[in-house]
């Protein structure tokens, strides 16, 4: 299958190029014809809620899953028909730490290095180097099963880069770990990228994507809603004014009434309230009066300052906070 040249983004030769990628599991469409490209040396963010198709996309790109249709090229190698074609060039950190519980941290890294054909001495040196870099040298001889969640995550990232891959896929690297470990991992990702590693990062933490990524793709229900640089995405919020109204009571079709009664306002429902957006400063009084006339008890009106989260909400219609909470519930993690 030919690659769609429009999917190639800014650079002439993207490191990863995906065109018209589709994948369904029985009657559930996980990935619905997405196209995108990742340039050499960038951190590319894939941002979306649970079930948006992020992990399915990573699985297809890394050879763990086969697409129903579409074209994939990784480092110039056509992986559409041969999912293993580029596996020597990629490192993968899955959304769950999946090293061997019975092996020590050191042995896990040495074993992973052997899978990439590294010789004994080379893999031992590399394992020691990574254990030092990730602050795990004290735990090198301990079984992986006894590691804390943050330590497991760090060692899983170390295993993903043991063979110095030019491309690293990170699936939710900081989900469910403590704040300090998450910060450390973000720094490690930035350091890796500064040494030339191209990173494909899926996350549901908008602030993480904002801090690390050059470009971000918003993926919702298997489709890419928008791809752009963080600067361009943020530009969308310039000159826009957003106020969130919280209230008690049955809102019914309150947004339609607000938009009809107060021209120039765009209204969307959010949990326990509405989000009102306008090109001019939002006049709070008329909106509150309208809500109260509808029998709603307004508890708060809060100005929302421009952020990537706002862009995400306005493009996808999904509350970022909800997305984060849902993920933490599923993982039983403590957040970051």
């Amino acid at each position, binding site marked *: 299958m030919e690659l769609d040249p429009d999917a190639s983004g800014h650079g002439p030769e993207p490191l990863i190029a995906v065109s018209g990628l589709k994948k369904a*599991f029985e009657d559930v469409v996980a990935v619905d014809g997405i196209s995108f490209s990742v340039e050499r040396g960038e951190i590319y963010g894939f941002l979306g809620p649970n079930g948006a198709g992020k992990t399915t996309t990573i699985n297809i790109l*890394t*050879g*763990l*899953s*086969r697409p129903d249709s579409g074209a994939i090229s990784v480092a110039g190698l056509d992986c559409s028909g041969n*999912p*293993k074609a580029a*596996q*020597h060039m*990629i490192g*993968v950190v*899955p959304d*769950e730490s*999946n*090293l*061997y*519980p*019975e*092996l020590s941290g050191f042995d896990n890294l040495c*074993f*992973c290095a*052997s*899978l*990439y*054909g*590294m*010789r004994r001495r080379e893999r031992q040196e590399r394992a020691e180097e990574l254990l030092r870099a990730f602050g795990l040298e004290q735990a090198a001889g301990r079984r992986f099963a006894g590691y804390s969640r943050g330590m497991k995550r760090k060692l899983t990232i170390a*295993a993903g880069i043991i063979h110095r891959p030019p491309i690293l896929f990170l699936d939710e690297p900081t989900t469910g770990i403590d704040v300090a470990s998450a910060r450390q991992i973000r720094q490690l990702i930035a350091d890796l990228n500064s040494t030339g590693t191209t990173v494909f990062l899926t996350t549901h933490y908008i602030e993480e994507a904002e801090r690390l990524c050059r470009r971000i793709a918003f993926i919702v229900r298997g489709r890419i809603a928008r791809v752009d640089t963080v600067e361009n995405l943020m530009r969308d919020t310039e000159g826009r004014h957003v106020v969130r109204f919280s209230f008690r009571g049955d809102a019914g079709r309150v947004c339609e009434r607000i938009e009809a009664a107060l021209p120039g306002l765009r209204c969307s429902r959010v949990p326990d309230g509405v989000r009102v957006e306008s090109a001019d400063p939002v006049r709070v009084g008329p909106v509150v009066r309208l809500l109260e006339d509808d029998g709603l008890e307004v508890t708060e009106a809060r100005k929302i300052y421009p952020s990537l989260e706002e862009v995400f909400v306005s493009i996808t219609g999904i509350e970022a906070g909800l997305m984060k909470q849902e993920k933490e519930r599923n993982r039983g993690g403590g957040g970051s």
Partner: protein
Amino acid sequence: MKTWIAFWGILAKDVRSYYLKPPNISWGLLFPLVWTTMFFVRSGLGIDSLPDLLPGLVALSILFGTTSVLSVTVTFEKKGRSFERLLLAPISLQLLMLAKTSGAILFGTVNAFVPVAVAAFLTDLSAVNWFVLIPAATLIAVSSTFLGLFIAVSVKEVFEAQTFSNFFRFPMIFLCGLFFPVASLPPLLRPLSYMLPLTYGADILRGSISGRNTMPLGLDFVVLAGFCAVLFLVTLGNINRKWIT
């Protein structure tokens, strides 16, 4: 060269993590030993009958040594997602699965010679044709291991791997001619017996130890090798279909 480093890495890790663990050694040896002793006591024959029982002991040691560990460990790794690490490695699926099964094949083959070594102290084994027995034990280990792999790929849970293994193992013990000659089985069961790889393996073992094989040994080897090839190819197909979805 690089792929062989990966092959050796997987084999060494499995041997260290799984096959050299005391519970696995005892399971692979104790069960066949108890089973065969039961037949030995039941038959009321003396120590001279040991060569007659040795093929059964060897075959069961291999069968239980290979299937019990492999099917459980592969299912365990699949469930814990560490198997994904192997699927992400830049080696072919064929070589990966050969590496994954080599530990079980080695373990099964070594298991086979433990009862032989014990028997050597108790009875005269000078009639044993070692040039037939050693390749036979290895080939039975290969076929049993591939059966274990087939089971591992067919189930999702670790407990299912154990119960599903028994679904194959126990009928095989009774129908393969080790304890009851195939000719003495009810006519309805006889065709089933010839559909089992262990029937041919047991025949070679009998031929090599006491010279009492019922089919030509060449035919036994060819059929057993055929079972190995079919089981491996079918399992690879299942992995491709079920695990790389």
